[in-house]
């Protein structure tokens, strides 16, 4: 019996079949939409850039190497490249979407509202991170966003490895408490 997709890792989904890729898309859709919405301020542009990002992930998914990092970090790198190239060229990148023959997105008002809501949820998470002590936020960003290992983080932050672990652990607890207190 196949495992529940919700319990499979990103790397397993990326290596899986088409339905698995759909699951992976749903898992990261909000984060990518919010990433672009924060930087462009436009729901329609965020949707187009998100489509190009996932098209690139889809096209290159068989080359993913788990030894090089996690899928989330890879996806973030793709999103950043898409954004920078779009800004450099002054237009929304759609090279891979066109190559894969994906149709242009047609968004109605409800779609745009959904994207605004996704961005709003992400803002709440950023607020929560800002509300915890800076040393905890720094440790969480270093470990979870940047995926650094503990020894490297400890050297950079000028403290012991166990202190970094403690900051990450306590910071996550505070983050969870903060988010739960503000639905």
């Amino acid at each position, binding site marked *: 019996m196949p495992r529940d997709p919700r319990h499979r890792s990103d790397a397993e989904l990326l290596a899986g*079949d*088409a*339905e698995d*890729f*759909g699951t992976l*898309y*749903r898992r990261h*859709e909000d984060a990518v*939409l919010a*990433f672009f919405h924060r*930087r462009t*301020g*436009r729901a*329609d542009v965020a949707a187009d850039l998100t*489509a190009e990002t*996932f*098209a*690139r992930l*889809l*096209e*290159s998914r068989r*080359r993913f190497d788990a030894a*090089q*990092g996690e899928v989330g970090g*890879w996806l*973030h*790198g*793709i999103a*950043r*490249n898409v954004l920078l190239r779009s*800004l*450099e060229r*002054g237009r929304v990148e759609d*090279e*891979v979407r066109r*190559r894969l023959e*994906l*149709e242009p*997105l047609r968004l109605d*008002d409800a*779609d*745009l*509202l*959904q*994207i*605004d809501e996704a961005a709003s949820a992400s*803002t709440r998470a*950023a*607020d929560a*991170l*800002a*509300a915890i002590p*800076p040393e905890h*936020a*720094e440790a969480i*960003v270093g470990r979870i*966003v*940047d*995926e*650094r290992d503990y020894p490297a983080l400890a050297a950079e932050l000028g403290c012991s490895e166990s202190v970094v672990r403690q900051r990450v652990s306590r910071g996550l607890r505070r983050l969870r408490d903060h988010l739960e207190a503000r639905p």
Partner: protein
Amino acid sequence: MTRLPALERQLVATAERLDATATPAAAPSPAAPSRRRRLLAWIAGHSLLALAGTGLAAAAVATGSALVLSDAQRSAPASGTFRPRPDWASQPPLPEQRYSVEMQPGLAVGRTSWCSSVTVRRAGSTARGTGGGGCLAYVTDRDHLLGGSIQSVPGRGSLSAMIVDQTVAYALRPDGTRIVPARGRHLPNGWGVIVVLPRAGRASSTRGTDALPGLDDTLGRLRFRDAAGRPITSRRILHDPSLPVARRRGLGPAAGAAPCTIRSSDPTLRPVASAWVSGELRGRPDLNGRAMLSCATTGFRRGHAEHRVERYQVVVLVDGERPGRAAPMAFPGATERDGLARPGLGMQGGPGDILPGALQRRATSLRSGNAWIVVQGGASRARRDAVARSITVGVRP
């Protein structure tokens, strides 16, 4: 649940097709960014938060060593040009770049926030090179480091900027020399900026006497001091950053039914969605730099054919400390003419020199009583101005 079901369907169908044909991927692999690049990327996106944290840490470890006044250099200005020296590997020589560091009030409803943006582009080009920055809610008078941003300039290093308030007299570099913040018209109410221009290879050259050639581009290595040489202790307070906000599709409440309301007299504008402060319009007494409160917004559209739809976002800004008081200029550095003010209007060279950042899209603002109406989007400045003039706002402080 997915926000864009049509996209998910297309992706799944395309994945099936690719798997069925086993076509080798044709696109170059998007290189996994280095950890440093990922950090910079994350900082660019969350710059206000991350660099404020860095700045706080920096301030905490600053030493009290006395400095000789003549060591001080003024920061590169908030906007200008630079021409990095060609790297030994660069072909052809690197073109002149223009940059701009800007601030504007945040437009998120219910928040009293500041936003900053850093834009870099090639001189003479209409396309932005890079853009970044972010918004930070509830900057109090105990928070002296608004935030910073690092923008990579492909092949040319990175440009770093830290926005500081008037308490910050200078930044101390690791070698003991000082950088005095530059002030500018488009940085409001005493805010200043410390700009570190990018280096190409191991050296850079810059235009102007205020430039800082060859400075290390790591903002985190700077220590911030007040006029007496004391370390700056900046404290971020982020509890309750937002007033209660209500949302609805279409128009918001009618005049008098909410603290801030928006209506348009233009029948061709179709209201799409609205948000407004639903409770009391409460000012905050401890804000830094005359921040403004965004109290209502409505998105409008004009036209129906998909490729001809014009989208406008209308926002009402009031004074963040005392909503009943006349709000300061919506866009710092703008010049008000007949009630209208646009970002960059007062900058050197006029509107053609506007460098709208990633957050500051083309916008128009119109004074309405003590508030400002801000209009973003649309096809042209004239159309934005016309939309702004069609808007009536009600503000009940």
